[in-house]
Structure formats: C-alpha cells, structure tokens
C-alpha cells in the first residue's frame, strides 16, 4: 500500500466507507423500490446518499443527481441521453482533444452518426481556454464537453468561463469532473454546467458507482431503459451500498480537503522537484495555472515509459505512463500529444499520483529507486548520448 503512487488510477476504499456500506449487503438489503419496510429503509438511505452527493457537488436539488455505474456511464449519458432529447436531428459538438476516452470515443461515434465534431485543443500550458472554445462555436452547436481537470497532467480548467460562452451560443455544457471531485473547489451551480460526471473509486469509495449531475430542466431520453428507477432516467435496481459508500467517501474528502490538499501539494512538488533535480533531462509536463494537488506529471527523456514502469513495479512501486507500449497501441498518450509534447518525449512520460496514505518517505524512496533505474535504462539505450548529451 505505501508504495502505491497511482491514486489517479484508482484508490483503496477507506475503512470508514466500508463500515457504512456493510449493513446494506445483507441486513438492510431491501430493494429501494419496494413498498414494505426494508424497501423503504433502503430507499431512505439511498436518498440520504443522494442528498449528500448533491450538497457535496453544489447541486441545487438532490433530484439533479442520478446514480450511475461510474464516470464512463455518466459521460455516455451526457451525450446519448441528452442529445436524443436536445438534438434528435444531429448538429454540432465540441470536445477537447485531451478528454478521457469515455468522452472522446462517444463524440467520435456521434460524428459518424449524424453529428459534426470539432476538437478544441488545449494550449501548451495544459489548459483549455474559453476563447478557443468560442472560436469553434456555431449556430447549430448543441453540446460542448471539456473536462474539469485532466487525468494525466492534472491541469484544472476554468469551466465557469467556458460554460458562459457555451451558453451564449445556446448550447449545453458538460464537464467530466471525475479527477477533480473532492480535490479542488467544485460547485456545479457556480460552474454553470448542465451536466457533470463523477466517480466514486477515485475518492476512496467503491468501484462500480458514480453520478451524473443533470441540471433540472435539461431534456433527457434515458440511455438505459427498464423499470424506470432514478426517476426514469437510469433504470436498474440501484447500487444502494455503492451509493452509500460513494456519499460517505465524498463527505470524508470534503471534510478533510482543507488539511489534505496542502499536504498532497507538498508531496506532489517534492516528487517533481526530487526527480527533476536528481535526474538530468527530466521536466514537469506542465507547471502553470491551476493543477490538481495529487498529480505529478513527468517527462523522462531518453527512456521508454513501460520499461521504467516495470522496473519500478519490480521494487513494489505502482505508477502510470503515457507511453505507447503501456497501452498496447502504437501511439503515445493523446493527452501528451495534445499539449504539444513530441512523440519521442511522450514515450518517456511518468505519472505519479499521490493520495491519502502517501508519505514523504514514500516519495523520497521513490526518487531514490527511480534514479538508478533511469540511469541503467539510459545506459542501455543506443541513442541516449547522441540525442541528449553534447
């Protein structure tokens, strides 16, 4: 556990979360849609969880929160369900180039099925700008989606500014806020978004549960049809224990954020500084503007990311890379390419993400083991000296 440095991928479920979930597996197991007592009890618990999540994200009404199977489903519904109601005859969409695939692949699919798609590129500083979105808006733009913060480089975007220009064009605004939830100031009403996606397992809650924020009054033709649960917007018996766990996880994140955020920022910066000072030809991928407190994005030149990841894994450290080889594709991370990182550099990306149980000693130990790993791999490279040493 102590050597886990991939909290942006997923997190362990907090014991305090498990504790509140447990009764809902076999004691309070009722179907929240049943009329008798154990059903009603489950219903009340589910609705209390909804209220907690609604308050936590700044929704004006609990009814604006739809529990889903996770962030991916919320992203899919923000497009499919909303567009079926808003734009049955197609139209124009804008998404940013570095969206999660749960948004990108959906937008690409829609572009082949009656919609036109424009891609707004983030700038080199890692952020998406409202004025760049504004240039792409058209009279027939129906929906714009820009993530609140990016999962690979940690850039936090000014979604309120983007939502304002989007609404000026009479389009809807969606934001994937999966990485931001509980980590940075986030209030959907103040952001002015129409839809937002959230996930539980990034905040020490269980996997398989998330939420879609759907502003009241936005038309919605449910993607998942059936028994009409979630006020007919998401059928299927609710994941009661999951929703309760999610709500508790969010409550804890928000209660502890004020003390936790500065601690994580210090760890993040210690990792960035440790690596870039101890290893030549390394840099932070982005270093300007608002960034998530927990993600340290690094570029290690002259090394391939997967080989770094595997050697770190040998020593018990879990990290991520945007190298092509790690994903099984031929191209390195679309996120890194979108912010102008050259392909040959992107292969050497490393994402360290810290969390609730990361200590300063973990970071120091990580830097200590990374240095010889990188040196060894560079020594094994036929081109490192040619490319990077004069």
């Amino acid at each position: 556990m102590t050597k886990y440095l991939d909290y942006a991928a997923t997190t362990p479920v907090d014991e305090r979360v498990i504790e509140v979930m447990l009764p809902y597996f076999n004691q309070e197991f009722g179907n929240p849609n049943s009329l008798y007592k154990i059903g009603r009890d489950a219903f009340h618990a589910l609705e209390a969880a909804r209220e907690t999540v609604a308050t936590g994200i700044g929704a004006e009404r609990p009814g604006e929160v739809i529990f889903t199977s996770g962030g991916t489903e919320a992203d899919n519904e923000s497009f499919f369900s909303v567009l079926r109601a808003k734009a049955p005859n197609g139209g124009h969409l804008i998404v940013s180039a570095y969206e999660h695939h749960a948004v990108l692949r959906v937008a690409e699919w829609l572009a082949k099925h009656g919609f036109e798609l424009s891609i707004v590129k983030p700038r080199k500083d890692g952020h998406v700008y409202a004025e760049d979105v504004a240039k792409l808006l058209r009279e027939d733009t129906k929906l714009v989606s820009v993530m609140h913060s990016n999962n690979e480089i940690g850039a936090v975007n000014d979604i309120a500014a983007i939502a304002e220009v989007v609404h000026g064009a009479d389009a809807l605004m969606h934001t994937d806020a999966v990485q931001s939830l509980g980590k940075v100031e986030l209030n959907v009403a103040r952001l002015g978004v129409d839809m937002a996606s959230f996930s539980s397992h990034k905040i020490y809650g269980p996997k398989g549960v998330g939420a879609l924020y759907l502003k009241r009054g936005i038309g919605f033709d449910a993607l998942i049809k059936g028994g009409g649960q979630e006020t007919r917007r998401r059928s299927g018996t609710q994941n009661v224990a999951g929703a309760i766990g999610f709500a508790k996880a969010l409550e804890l994140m928000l209660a502890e954020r004020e003390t936790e955020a500065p601690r994580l920022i210090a760890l993040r910066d210690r990792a960035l500084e440790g690596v870039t000072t101890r290893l030549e030809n390394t840099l932070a991928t982005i270093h300007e503007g608002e960034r998530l407190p927990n993600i340290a994005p690094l570029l290690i030149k002259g090394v391939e990311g997967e080989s770094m990841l595997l050697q770190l894994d040998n020593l018990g450290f879990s990290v991520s890379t945007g190298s092509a080889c790690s994903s099984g594709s031929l191209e390195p991370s679309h996120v890194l390419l979108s912010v102008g990182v050259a392909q040959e550099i992107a292969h050497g990306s490393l994402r360290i993400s810290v969390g609730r149980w990361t200590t300063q000693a973990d970071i120091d130990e990580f830097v200590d083991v990374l240095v010889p790993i990188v040196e060894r791999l560079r020594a094994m490279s036929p081109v490192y000296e040619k490319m990077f040493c004069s």
Partner: protein
Amino acid sequence: MIYSEKVMDHFNNPRNVGVISDADGSGEVGNPVCGDIMKITIKVNDDDTIADAKFQTLGCGAAIATSSMVTELVKGKKIQDAVRISKRDVADELDGLPAAKMHCSVLATDGLKVAVDDYLKKHGREPLSGVIKSADPNYNPHEDEDEEED
C-alpha cells in the same frame, strides 16, 4: 497485457548488453518517434559463424527482452541461419508475446539482418537478399507483414 516469466527474466536480466568495440558488423533499426530503437553488433568467425553478439535497446519490456533473446539465439549460428530467425521464433522462445507487441517491439531480428549485411559488405560480399530494408531510415516496422497474433 501480461508478459511471460521468460520475457520478464530477459527484461530484468538482459544478456549481452553493450557494444562490441571491434565488431565485424553493426545494425541499428527503429526510430525514436516509435519509441523503440535497437543496435546490435556482431563478431563473425572466418567460417561465417557468429562468435559474439551484443545489443543496446531503447524501448519497452518486449523490445529489451527480444533483443536479449536474439543475441542468445544467434551465437554459434552461421549467418545464413541466423538471419532466418523470425519474429515468431523469438516470441516462441520467450513463451509468447502479447499481440500488440509483435508488430513494433521485435526489432532485433531486423537489426541482426542489417548487421549481417554490414559484415558481408565490409568483406566485399553480396548482401543477403531482401533483408536490408530495415536499414532504410524511413523504414516503418509497423508496415511489416509479420502480423501473427499471439
């Protein structure tokens, strides 16, 4: 995508890393944009037997492990036999490779062919036919026809 134990062994303890300073043949393939580059140097006896082979590789676990395996496989082989070692042979020796790795990460068989041709050229002999393409700076390993899946 999970590597076999044998791949991990060759990745963690690569055999024959380095450069033979008085090499008889040398080959470098791949390019940094793809993320994988491999250089192999060979020492060849008068009877065309490969006496020694060393490699340097920038690349993923599969690229390093296959490089290591190729240097092991070619030692003691005649050059004519060594160049016939296919990507599939290397993958089999490593107890298989993930499908995505077959395309771009098995550079060493190409590198060896370039090194052998380099050796033949130095001795005024005809290169082995059809194997020099990977020495072309525009060579794209992704276009390779060896697309067997594992």
